[in-house]
Every structure is written in C-alpha cells, then in structure tokens.
C-alpha cells in the first residue's frame, strides 16, 4: 500500500479523491480517507493549499453547502460547449435576413431593411441583434424623421471570426452567382476592370461604421 509521509502525499490523495468523486465530498467524507485524525485547522490548511495549487487552471476547487468539489471555471464553458453534439439554438429568418442586410448594406435604416425584405421589421428583431452586441446605431440619416442608421459592430466581426468586413463573402461574387442562376442565357461579357472593382471589397470595410461614428462621413448637413 502507498505510504503517506509528507503533507504533499496527503494532498495528493485528497486531490485524487476529489477529482474522482461524482458528488461533493464533505469534511466527514474526507476524514474517512486517512487513518490519522487531523484537527480541523490542519484540514483547512490542506484544502486551502490544494485550492491554491489549482488557482491558475481551468478547474477550481470550491466549497459548497454539501462539501468540496472540483468544477470547471465559467471562462472555459465556451470550449466545453464545442464538444457537445446538441445543435445550438438558431435565429429566426427575420433576424438572419435583417442581420445580412445590415452586414452587407450598412449603414442602413429600418426603412431600408423593410424595403429589401418587403415586410415590416419588428422592433424585437433589431433589439435581439443589439442585445447580442452585433449591431448598433452609428448615426441618423438626414431625412424626415431622422431615422437611425444601423451598422455591425466589432463584436460581430469577432464572433464570426472575421478580421474585417472585407472578409464577408464578397457581394459582387454573390451577385454573379445569382446572375449565373437567374439569367443563364444572355452572357454579357464584363469589362475586367469593372468586374474587378466591383468584386474587390473595400480594404478597411469595418472602418466605415467607425468613420460614420466619428462624424467624418456622417450625414452631411
């Protein structure tokens, strides 16, 4: 049998028991581990020490009402979620279309969105996207009612793994795809320059909303 001499040895048994236990272990449980009968101060020292050992890890030792247990830190949840096979919830069609319109046509007003979608846009849709931190208001159009102009945020780029809006699937390319599908017959040869121009997204795409925010390119007035 494994012999325990130093405090380290006891701590190792403690750690092993806590890592293997499916339920929190009370101090009474933990005391069953060893023949020796430590006083509560010693136990406290052992457990505090162990807690400190795990201070910089993805797992931490916590004390709950029913005892001690190791548990994952919340910051690591996002990684653990990736291992789950369950499908993540999805946004409604209205939310996705609105997001796509804002992403590709920003800055746009609610009216613009409604015009493209052909239906009224519920305030909830915009609230959902604002709540997620993916869109925000970058200004107001100089038009009757001064409607708010929406654009996508840096968080939207981060969450979709984009460095800039320039990395969105290019518009011109998408439209060429539509053309290829829609009017298969009359192939109009495009002048290379124009096609290239249209296909090349702006170099600092994400600079546009920012610029509008700064008032540089904001509504003329």
């Amino acid at each position: 049998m494994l012999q325990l001499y130093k405090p380290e040895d006891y701590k190792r048994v403690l750690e092993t028991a806590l890592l293997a236990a499916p339920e929190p272990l009370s101090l009474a449980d933990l005391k069953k581990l060893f023949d020796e009968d430590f006083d509560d101060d010693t136990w406290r020292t052992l457990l505090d020490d162990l807690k400190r050992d795990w201070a910089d890890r993805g797992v931490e030792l916590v004390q709950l009402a029913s005892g001690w247990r190791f548990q994952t830190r919340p910051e690591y949840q996002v990684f653990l979620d990736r291992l789950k096979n369950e499908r993540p919830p999805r946004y409604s069609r209205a939310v996705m279309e609105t997001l796509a319109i804002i992403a590709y046509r920003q800055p746009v007003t609610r009216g613009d969105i409604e015009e493209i979608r052909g239906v009224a846009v519920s305030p909830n849709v915009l609230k959902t996207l604002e709540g997620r931190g993916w869109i925000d208001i970058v200004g107001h159009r100089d038009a009757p009612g001064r409607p708010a102009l929406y654009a996508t945020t840096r968080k939207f780029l981060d969450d979709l793994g984009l460095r800039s809006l320039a990395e969105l699937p290019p518009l011109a390319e998408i439209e060429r795809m539509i053309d290829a599908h829609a009017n298969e017959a009359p192939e109009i040869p495009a002048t290379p320059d124009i096609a290239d121009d249209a296909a090349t997204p702006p170099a600092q795409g994400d600079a546009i909303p920012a610029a509008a925010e700064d008032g540089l390119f904001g509504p003329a007035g």
Partner: protein
Amino acid sequence: MTETLKVGAGDTAPAETHVPKLYGEPLPELPRDLYIPPDALEVFLDAFEGPLDLLLYLIRKANVNILDIPMAPLTAQYLEYVEAMRRSNLELAADYLLMAAMLLEIKSRMLLPRPAKTEEGEAEDPRAELVRRLMEYERIKLAAARLDALPQVHRDYEWATVWVAEKVAERAPEVSLHDLQAVWLALMRKARVKQHHRVQREELSVRETMGVVLRHLQGRGYVMFEDLFAATAAQAGMAGMIVSFLAILELARESLIEITQSEALAPIYVKCRDVATLQA
C-alpha cells in the same frame, strides 16, 4: 510410463476403508485426494467450472504430461468423484456424465491394438480430441485469470469526473458566415424575381440611372464607389452595372457628385455636391 497417478505425499489415509469398485471394475490404487467428507463435496464441486476443469485439476495435481495422459487411473479417479457425488445424493450435471462416458470410451479404445500408420504419419491417438479440448480450456482459463488481473474501472481505479459548472445564461444562437451568405443570396434572388418584369419593360437609360445614383447618395454623405454599383446591379445585373458606371461619369461631368480617393488603390468615395438642393 507408469499407469498410476502420483498422489501428494502429505495426504493422510482415509478413515473409511472399503474395496473401491467402480461399475464392477476394481481400482488399482485409491485416489486418496478424492476422499472428501460428504458435506465438503458440495463445496468441492462448486470449486470447479465443469468436467474439463476437474480433469485439468486431476492431471496437474498428479503432475503428468498432458500429451500422454494415463487414461486408466484418470478415468478411475474421475468416476470415483462422480460416484461420490451420486452417493451423497448430489445432483449431477449432465456435462459430468457426458465426460464420464467419453473417458470410458477413450479408455476402451486404448486397449484395442492401434491401427496401422497412415500416410501422414502416426495414427490418431484416441486421446487426441480430449487433449486438444483440455489444452484449449486451460488456455482460456489462464486468459480469464489474466483478464481478471487487469486493472478494471470502478474496481481498481476511477474515471476523473470534474463537475461542469454550466453558466445559467442561455446559449446564444450561433451564426456562421455561410448562414449569412445563404440568407443574403436568398434575399437577392427574391428581389430579382420581384423586379424582373420592370427591368424588362423599362429601358435602361443612363439618365434614369443617374437619378437612381443621386437618390442613393442623398443624405448619406460619402458612399463607397462599390456600393453604388451594388445598389444598381441588384436591380439590373451586369448591364445595369455598366449603365451605372456611365451614369456616375456623367454625374461627375455635370458636377453633381464628388468622387474622392485618398491614394492609389484606396477606396473610392462618392458624395452629393449639394445635398440641400436635391432634397425632396
């Protein structure tokens, strides 16, 4: 090769003495280690997994060569064991009786002269099948013991199971670039279908497109050059894009718009010259 099984030296003589006869055949030697108190017989029986296990025990205990089993004493010992069970009114497993019949059959065949050698070599030993089965069983018996010795989860070790501290916040929907593109593609396709007849009816003219461009620029300040194309191309495809280009050139020539570019290859921005006068 002696036909008697060696018996452990430490064995004490049984208290009971009678002439051992099995099915009328006298035994050459008493199989001493088989004299078991009747109440211990059941325990003894439980210790074996079947006739093969019992036979292996008898063979290993006597320390004889498994490839040259002395059939007479082995059969005698086995039958004595079966007889003891019968005397104790223990129920006998069919498997034990089947093995008894097999042993007796082999033993009787051993007494017959061996048939002539076949072309391949020696004639088949009547014990061959029994030996094959005993060796296969012994292999499995050892393998089972080895398997049992392997560390087994929950018996010899545990899985580490750290509690996953799930956040209470509900999981936000995930959106991929692909989703976004697919939605946009569908929107554009829908828009095209809607506008198809209009585009066919109306002739694309440069002047009309100039109005579209101006309207597009209205109240927007600087607009990306590309966005102007995107706006018109969505309506009339490649032909529309060419018309838009001409319209923009014409607007610039008429000083209605301002086209700026900070440096070569930098984005080109377009802006209305006089927003106020163009406001509807």
